[in-house]
C-alpha cells in the first residue's frame, strides 16, 4: 500500500486539516502510513469522544455503591454479598445498516468482551433497537438481519438475551440503531483493569487471528452516510461466536490465576486502541512486533494489522513468570496465544514489521493533544402547547389501533428468536415484567435489567426527553420491586458539527444529569454514536439508557401478569397529557406538542412508595404506564395474565381519551387485593392513587360498556409484527 502521506490522505482518513497539522507537530516529521492510521482512529469521534467529552462531564458518576465509573471498559457497581455487576451498552449502528446480520452480531460480541475483559462472567444481554418505517422492504430486511444477528451470536455464546426495546420511525430509515448491552457478575475484589504496568512485562495476543476485516471501522462509524454506504461493506467485521465462547472460558480461567497484570479487548480500532490505551493509562511505553501477530491472511501490511477490527481478540500484559501457565490455558481452549511485544519505559509505542519500524509515536501527546471540541449549540425551540384535541374515534377503536401499531404491538416475534433461558437463572423473561429479572447463580439475589428511551419526546424537547429516558429506566426497575443502582448510556445523535444537533446532545445530557441526581441513579459507563445521518437527515435524538437494579431476594419480584379478582390502582397523577403521545400520532395523525413533563420529586416519591409496597408483599402485579398510557398498561397486564378487567369511568375534569391514553409520567398500575388499604397507604405517603377497575373474566370491559374479548385483543397485539415481517 504505497500511498503518499499528506493532508489529502489525512482527510480521507477522517482527520481535519487542523488535526493533521497537530499530527505533524507532534511527530516533527511526516508520519508513516501506519502512524497516520493510528492517529486517525485514535482521534476519530468514535474513539476520542472529541465532540461529546465536554458534555459527558456533566453526568453524575458516583454513589456509595459505584466501584468504577466511566473510563474503563465497563462500569462496576457493588450488588452486595461481595459481588459486583459489570455492565455497559454500546452502539453498532453504522455496521448494522451496511450489513445487518454481522453488524448486530459483532455488536453483541464487542460488548460481551468489554464486560468479560474486566473479570465478569456475562449473565445477560439486552438491546435497544430503532428501525425505520416498517412498511419499507429495506426496513424489514434490516430488522430480520439484526434480529438474526443478535440471536445468532448471543444464542451461541450462551448468554441469555433477556430484554430490550424497539421503536420505529422514518428518521431511522437510513440509519437504524443497534445498541447492545451486556451485564456480568464478578467478585467485587477481582476486577481486572486495562492500565499496563511493569517494564519488560510481555504483551500477549490471544483469540482469533487477524484478517483484513473492519479496517477503518471506527472511522466509518464517525462519518455520515451518503449514497456510497453500500461500498463500505468491507469495513464491517465478521463475528465468530464460537471463538468468543472459548475466549470467555479461557479468559475467566486465566483470571482465576494471578497471571494478569492488565487486559483489554481489541474492539474499535483493534490492536491500535488496545495497545495505545493500555500503555497510555499505565504511563509506560510499548513495543509491538507485528511478525508475531497471528494472521489469517498473507501479505498483510503493518497498516492493515494495526487497523484491523477482526473480532474475538484480546491483549494481555502478563506477569513474566506466569507466561507458561497462561499459554497452557489458551492451548487447552485451542486459541491463538502469541507474545507480540513488551512494555518499555520510553513512553512511546514502537511498531516493527519485517525488521522495519513502521510506527514510533509518543503516547502522551497522542492522548493529551487529542482534539477536544466545544462545538456550537443551538437550543431546540420549545414546542407550542398542544391545546385541546378532540377524540375522533372513541376508546375502543383507538385501543385497537394502538395495540397493533408497530411501536406498541407484541415483540414476541423478536424475543422468540433469542435464547432467554440459557444459564437457568432467568426469573422473569422478556415481556413478563417491566424489567428482566436474572438471579445470580447460587444466590438469592437477582438483577433487574431494562433499556429505555422515548426518542419522539427527545426530538420535541431533548432536555425533558433525556430526563424521561432515565426516569423510565428507574421506573421499570422499580416496578419489579428492585432497587435501581446505576445506568449505562448510549447517546445516538446526528452530526455534531450542526449546532442544532449539538444543542440536542447538550440538552439531553442536562436532562439526564438532573434525573440521575434526583433518582440516585448514576452513569457508570456509556458510549456515544454521532453522525447518525444519511444524506443530511438526522435520526431522532436517542439517548438510550440501560438500567440495572438489584433485588435482595429474587422471589420478591413481581411481574406484570394480571391475576384474577384484584383491584387495579394507578399510582401517580393523571392529567391526561397528550402532547407527543402515541395516541396523538397513531389516532389523531399528529406529531406535535410538548412531551410529558417529568416531575423528578414526584417520580421518586411514587416509585419509592411502589417499591416499598411490592417488597411488603401487597402488590400482585405491577406495570408502569408509559407509551400508550393507562389503557395500554392495563391491556398489556391483562394479556400477560390472560385475565380480563372491567374499568371505571374516568374521573371528572379529564376527557376520557386523555385520561386513558395520555402519557403522564411517574405512574404505575398495581394489581392489589385490598384496594382500600392501598389507597390509604398512598394517601399517607402523599402519593396520588386512584381505583381504575377490577380484574376477572376473559374480556376487557371499557367504561363505555363496550366489551372486547382478550382473544381479539391478543390477535391484534400478537399478529401485527409477524404479519409485518411475513411470518
Amino acid at each position, binding site marked *: 500500500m504505497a500511498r503518499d502521506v499528506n493532508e489529502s490522505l489525512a482527510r480521507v482518513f477522517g482527520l481535519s486539516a487542523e488535526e493533521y497539522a497537530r499530527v505533524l507537530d507532534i511527530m516533527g516529521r511526516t508520519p508513516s502510513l501506519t502512524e497516520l492510521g493510528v492517529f486517525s482512529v485514535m482521534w476519530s469521534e468514535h474513539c476520542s469522544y472529541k465532540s461529546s467529552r465536554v458534555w459527558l462531564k456533566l453526568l453524575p458518576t458516583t454513589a456509595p455503591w459505584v466501584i468504577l465509573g466511566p473510563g474503563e471498559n465497563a462500569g462496576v457497581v457493588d450488588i452486595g454479598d461481595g459481588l459486583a455487576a459489570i455492565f455497559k451498552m454500546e452502539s453498532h449502528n453504522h455496521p448494522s445498516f451496511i450489513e445487518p446480520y454481522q453488524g448486530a452480531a459483532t455488536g453483541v460480541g464487542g460488548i460481551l468482551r468489554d464486560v468479560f475483559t474486566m473479570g465478569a462472567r456475562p449473565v445477560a444481554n439486552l438491546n435497544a433497537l430503532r428501525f425505520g418505517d416498517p412498511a419499507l422492504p429495506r426496513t424489514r430486511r434490516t430488522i430480520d438481519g439484526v434480529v*438474526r444477528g443478535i440471536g*445468532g451470536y448471543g444464542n451461541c455464546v*450462551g448468554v441469555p438475551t433477556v430484554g430490550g426495546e424497539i421503536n420505529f420511525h422514518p428518521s431511522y430509515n437510513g440509519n437504524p440503531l443497534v445498541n447492545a448491552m451486556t451485564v456480568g457478575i464478578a467478585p467485587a475484589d477481582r476486577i481486572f483493569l486495562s492500565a499496563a504496568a511493569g517494564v519488560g512485562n510481555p504483551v500477549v495476543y490471544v483469540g482469533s487471528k487477524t484478517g483484513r476485516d473492519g479496517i477503518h471501522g471506527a472511522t466509518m462509524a464517525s462519518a455520515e452516510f451518503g449514497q456510497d454506504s453500500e461500498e463500505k461493506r468491507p469495513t464491517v467485521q465478521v463475528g465468530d461466536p*464460537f471463538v468468543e465462547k472459548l475466549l470467555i472460558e479461557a479468559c475467566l480461567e486465566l483470571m482465576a490465576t494471578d497471571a494478569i497484570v492488565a487486559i483489554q479487548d481489541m474492539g474499535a480500532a483493534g490492536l491500535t486502541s488496545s495497545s495505545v490505551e493500555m500503555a497510555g493509562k499505565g504511563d509506560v511505553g510499548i513495543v509491538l512486533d507485528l511478525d508475531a501477530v497471528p494472521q489469517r491472511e498473507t501479505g498483510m501490511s503493518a497498516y492493515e494489522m494495526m487497523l484491523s477490527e477482526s473480532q474475538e481478540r484480546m491483549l494481555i500484559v502478563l506477569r513474566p513468570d506466569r507466561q507458561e501457565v497462561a499459554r497452557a490455558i489458551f492451548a487447552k*481452549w485451542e486459541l491463538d496465544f502469541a507474545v507480540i511485544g513488551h512494555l518499555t519505559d520510553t513512553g512511546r509505542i514502537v511498531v516493527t514489521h519485517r525488521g522495519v519500524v513502521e510506527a514510533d509515536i509518543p503516547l502522551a501527546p497522542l492522548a493529551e493533544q487529542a482534539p477536544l471540541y466545544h462545538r456550537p449549540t443551538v437550543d431546540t425551540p420549545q414546542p407550542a402547547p398542544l391545546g385541546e384535541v378532540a377524540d375522533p374515534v372513541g376508546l375502543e377503536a383507538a385501543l385497537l389501533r394502538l395495540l397493533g401499531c408497530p411501536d406498541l404491538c407484541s415483540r414476541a416475534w423478536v424475543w422468540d*428468536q433469542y*435464547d432467554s433461558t*440459557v444459564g*437457568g437463572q432467568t426469573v422473569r423473561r422478556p415481556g413478563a415484567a417491566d424489567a428482566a429479572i436474572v438471579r445470580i447463580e447460587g444466590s438469592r439475589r437477582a438483577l433487574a435489567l431494562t433499556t429505555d428511551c422515548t426518542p419522539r419526546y427527545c426530538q420535541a424537547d431533548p432536555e425533558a426527553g433525556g430526563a424521561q429516558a432515565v426516569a423510565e429506566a428507574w421506573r421499570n426497575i422499580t416496578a419489579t420491586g428492585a432497587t435501581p443502582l446505576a445506568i449505562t448510556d448510549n447517546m445516538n445523535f446526528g452530526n455534531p458539527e450542526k449546532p442544532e444537533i449539538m444543542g440536542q446532545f447538550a440538552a439531553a445530557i442536562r436532562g439526564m444529569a438532573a434525573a440521575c441526581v434526583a433518582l440516585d441513579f448514576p452513569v457508570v459507563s456509556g458510549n456515544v454514536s454521532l453522525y447518525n445521518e444519511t444524506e443530511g437527515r438526522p435520526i431522532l435524538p436517542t439517548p438510550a439508557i440501560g438500567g440495572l437494579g438489584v433485588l435482595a431476594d429474587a422471589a420478591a419480584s413481581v411481574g406484570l401478569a394480571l391475576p384474577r379478582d384484584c383491584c387495579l390502582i394507578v399510582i401517580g397523577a393523571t392529567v391526561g397529557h397528550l402532547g407527543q403521545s402515541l395516541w396523538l400520532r397513531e389516532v389523531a395523525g399528529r406529531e406535535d406538542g410538548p412531551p410529558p413533563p417529568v416531575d423528578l420529586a414526584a417520580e421518586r416519591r411514587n416509585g419509592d412508595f411502589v417499591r416499598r409496597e411490592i417488597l411488603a408483599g401487597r402488590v400482585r402485579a405491577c406495570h408502569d404506564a408509559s407509551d400508550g398510557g393507562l389503557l395500554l398498561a392495563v391491556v398489556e397486564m391483562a394479556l400477560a395474565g390472560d385475565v380480563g378487567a372491567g374499568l371505571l369511568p374516568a374521573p371528572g375534569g379529564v376527557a376520557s381519551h386523555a385520561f386513558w391514553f395520555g402519557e403522564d409520567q411517574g405512574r404505575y398500575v398495581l394489581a392489589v387485593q385490598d384496594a382500600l388499604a392501598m389507597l390509604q397507604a398512598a394517601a399517607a405517603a402523599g402519593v396520588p392513587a386512584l381505583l381504575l377497575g377490577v380484574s376477572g373474566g376473559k374480556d376487557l370491559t371499557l367504561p363505555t360498556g363496550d366489551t372486547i374479548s382478550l382473544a381479539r385483543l391478543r390477535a391484534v397485539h400478537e399478529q401485527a409484527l409477524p404479519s409485518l415481517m411475513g411470518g
Partner: protein
Amino acid sequence: MKAGIVVFPGINRERDMAIALEAAAGHKPRMVWHHETDLAGLDLVVIPGGFSYGDYLRCGAMAAQSPVMGAIRAHAARGGHILGVCNGFQILTEAGLLPGALLRNASLRFLSMDCWLRVERADTDFARHYQPGAVFRSPMAHGDGNYFADDATLDRLEGEGLVAFRYVTQEGAVTPEANRNGSARNIAGLYSPNLRVLGLMPHPEDLVDPLMGGTDGKPLFDGLAAALAA
C-alpha cells in the same frame, strides 16, 4: 447416581444441567472434557446443549467425531444411561446412537419459547416420575430441532415404543400448531431400543425451580436419580 456432563468446546448449557443434576442427586456431577476417553464409574453420561465446535458443519457432526465419543459409545454398549439434550440429541443422532436427524426448524428461525411435551411412556428410568400421558412444560431454544427420519424408521420407532416425548398442546393434543419446529410426528424425544439412551430437543433442566416459573422438568432428574441410586 454418578453423573458426568460432557463438555465440548462451544457447549453452553452445562451449568444449567449441573444445577438440575445436583438438585436431584445431592452432589455435583463430574465435568468431562471432550479429550477424556475414560468414563468408567459413571452411571449417567449427559451431553448438554450448546453449539459444539460452533456447529458450523451440521449440528453435532464435529462432536460426533471427537475423542470422547468412543468412550460414550462404549458406555452405551455397556448398557449405561445417556441423556442428550438439544445439541446433545443432535450429537447422538450424528454419532448413530439414535436414528434420524435434526434439520433446520421448519420456520427457518431460531425458536426460543416454552413448549408442552406429552410423556409417551413412563416405564423408563428417565420418565418414571411422570404419569403416562402426562403433559409437562419445558423451555426450548434451538435452530435445528426439526426431527426427521424416513417413514419406515418412524414406523419402527412407533412400533417399538421408542418415542419418548411429543410436542402437544397444553391439553395434550398432537397438532401442527404445537409442533413449532416441524418435527416428524411431533417427536421431541427418542429412546434407544434398550431405553437407556434418551435424546430430546427441549430443556427440562431449565425448569426445575419455582423461581424460574415452574418445576415441570424436575421429575425427569428426580426419576433418574432414584433409578440410578447406588
